[in-house]
């Protein structure tokens, strides 16, 4: 059975005339042991999607659709069941480890927090020992458990967050921009660490980032989001190197490649800003910024369609894009 099955998920902030759609009909599936990357610009709805998975969105957000975690719908489960599923079923590595750790508790105790909360261990001492074991798993000496968050470096804090995410042996880990604030070396270390742990524990990983290169390097499959919808989905390397959707292509090209002559002068970007979710352009939401837009793009919004083996893309050009370049 698939571990995570998101069906036609809509998230709207606010109600009535002021309603702003943040996620507009997303379908995702993730099997156990698989790694799925979710890419997109700031404000495209990827973090909203991550929080919606555990019903963590603040009250004004309305969520529609189905989120099946191991076949159980997160959106309809009872409050008690939801709390049991949180962390034990699916955990999150939050972005910004500094702020996701409570400054007044030692990190060992913070890792022990979910263990005690979910009654995996009942004694403080046993939970701590377990937390220290987790710290060693993520490459920190157990003695560092006695430190407060401010005494650790950025990379160490992120390791603590990862250790915490593993504390209850979840089936699914959602990593929301786990490497954003880290330098490249640490970023690579953290990514290798996540990869290793995911492989060892056989958990499903949903990794969210704006960095297509990072995602394609780590994940098996890649989904690209734009304005609350998935515009392309497919095997990670293929999406990165041979995008079907012009937006994915632009995202991939936005990262300069060492050795490519054109990147030395001016790294390629995408003109314009992501659309305001409150005033989405008609038709294909990407058409105002699209270099290959047709006149029909302003009228019809293309659905996701098959674009080769295991690939889907929402673009009228699906078959012709590659030839057009």
């Amino acid at each position: 059975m698939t571990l995570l099955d998101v069906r036609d998920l809509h998230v709207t902030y606010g109600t009535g005339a002021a309603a702003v759609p943040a996620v507009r009909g997303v379908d995702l599936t993730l099997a156990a042991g698989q790694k799925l990357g979710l890419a997109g610009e700031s404000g495209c709805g990827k973090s909203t999607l991550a929080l919606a998975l555990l019903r963590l969105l603040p009250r004004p957000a309305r969520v529609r659709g189905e989120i099946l975690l191991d076949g159980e719908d997160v959106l309809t489960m009872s409050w008690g069941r939801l709390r049991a599923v949180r962390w034990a079923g699916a955990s999150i590595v939050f972005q910004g480890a500094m702020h996701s750790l409570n400054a007044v508790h030692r990190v060992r105790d913070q890792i022990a927090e979910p263990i005690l909360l979910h009654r995996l261990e009942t004694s403080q001492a046993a939970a701590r020992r377990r937390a220290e074991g987790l710290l060693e798993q993520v490459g920190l000496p157990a003695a560092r458990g006695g430190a407060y968050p401010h005494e650790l470096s950025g990379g160490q804090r992120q390791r603590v967050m990862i250790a915490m995410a593993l504390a209850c042996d979840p089936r699914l880990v959602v990593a929301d921009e786990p490497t954003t604030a880290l330098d490249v070396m640490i970023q690579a270390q953290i990514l290798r660490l996540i990869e290793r742990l995911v492989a060892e524990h056989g958990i499903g990983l949903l990794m969210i980032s704006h960095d297509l290169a990072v995602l394609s390097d780590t994940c098996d499959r890649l989904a690209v989001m734009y304005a609350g919808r998935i515009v392309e989905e497919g095997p990670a390397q293929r999406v990165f190197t041979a995008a079907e959707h012009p937006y994915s292509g632009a995202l991939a090209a936005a990262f300069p490649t060492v050795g490519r002559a054109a990147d030395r002068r001016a790294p390629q970007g995408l003109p314009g800003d992501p659309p305001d979710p409150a005033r989405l352009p008609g038709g294909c939401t990407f058409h105002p910024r699209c270099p290959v837009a047709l006149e029909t793009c302003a009228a019809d919004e293309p659905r996701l369609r098959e674009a080769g083996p295991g690939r889907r893309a929402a673009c009228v050009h699906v078959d012709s894009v590659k030839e057009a370049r």
Partner: protein
Amino acid sequence: MSTEALGEEPGAEPPDTGAPAKSAAPADSADSAADPGALAWARRRRSAARFWRAYRGQRAGLVGLVALAVIAFTALAAPLLVGSDADSVTDAPGTALENPSTEFPLGTDQFGRSVLDLLVYGARISLTVGLLAAALTVGIGTLVGMLAGHYGGWLSGVLMRVTDFFLVMPTLVLAIVLATVMSRSVTTVIIAIGVAAWPKTARLVRAQTLAIEARPYVERARALGGGHTHVMRRHVLPNVLPLVLAQTTLVISEAILTEATLAFLGLGDPQVVSWGGMLQDAREAGAISSGHWSFLVPPGIAIAVVALCFTLAGRALESVLNPKLGVAK
């Protein structure tokens, strides 16, 4: 698993030692298997020692603490030090309003009682009222503030309107009214001060709670499966506590001052000696106009000194207990 079962959190823990003390891990765990109680005690002892080391570094706090200890000891031992009948009007040892002498270092009051002895007795009331009223104030204030800040919505609205109601009433007037309508006793004074002074703390705690609830680690705690109780106890309370502690020391000084004011206005228990009451006696006996400074000045200074000591000790305590302040040093 039921919501209640998850909401409960196993025993709150005293701050643990930061030392990588687990070097002797195997021996330690063997010990803990044999006698977890002893291990817990050893840990508590270590953490107390660490706390004391940090506190010793705060010179002003140390002065405040020593002074408070002396005052508290004097107050406790008052019957032994000055005799249990020092406040008796009928067999007063001296004549009315004597000047300082070797027998009465601070002179006598209008009944011929030794002012020094009265001062020692007055410390008991000031400390009792100050501590209990502050505990009441801070207790109500923290509870109301945290509930309002955490739950929000209509509960916050109701609680804050009640707070506003108490806030717009002048503290002293409210305390006077309460002290008047209730029977005259020390308990009444404590309740009057406590009920009149909590809104400020409640506002403060609510603001801090709101600020903390917006932090990502509270979102993380929710994602961990923590319920309201868990979030409030584990994350909000420890972060509100330094503020509450600082507030407590201020409230103690304030409560001591308010007690003195109430006693000065004649609303205290007439049967007990308090510093505010002594000031009132001095005024009524005409000590001001007749130049009997020795009756008037000592209670005033005593009030100021105790209030100052609490503030000093409180500030030192805050900088020791708050790890965020600790790093700066």
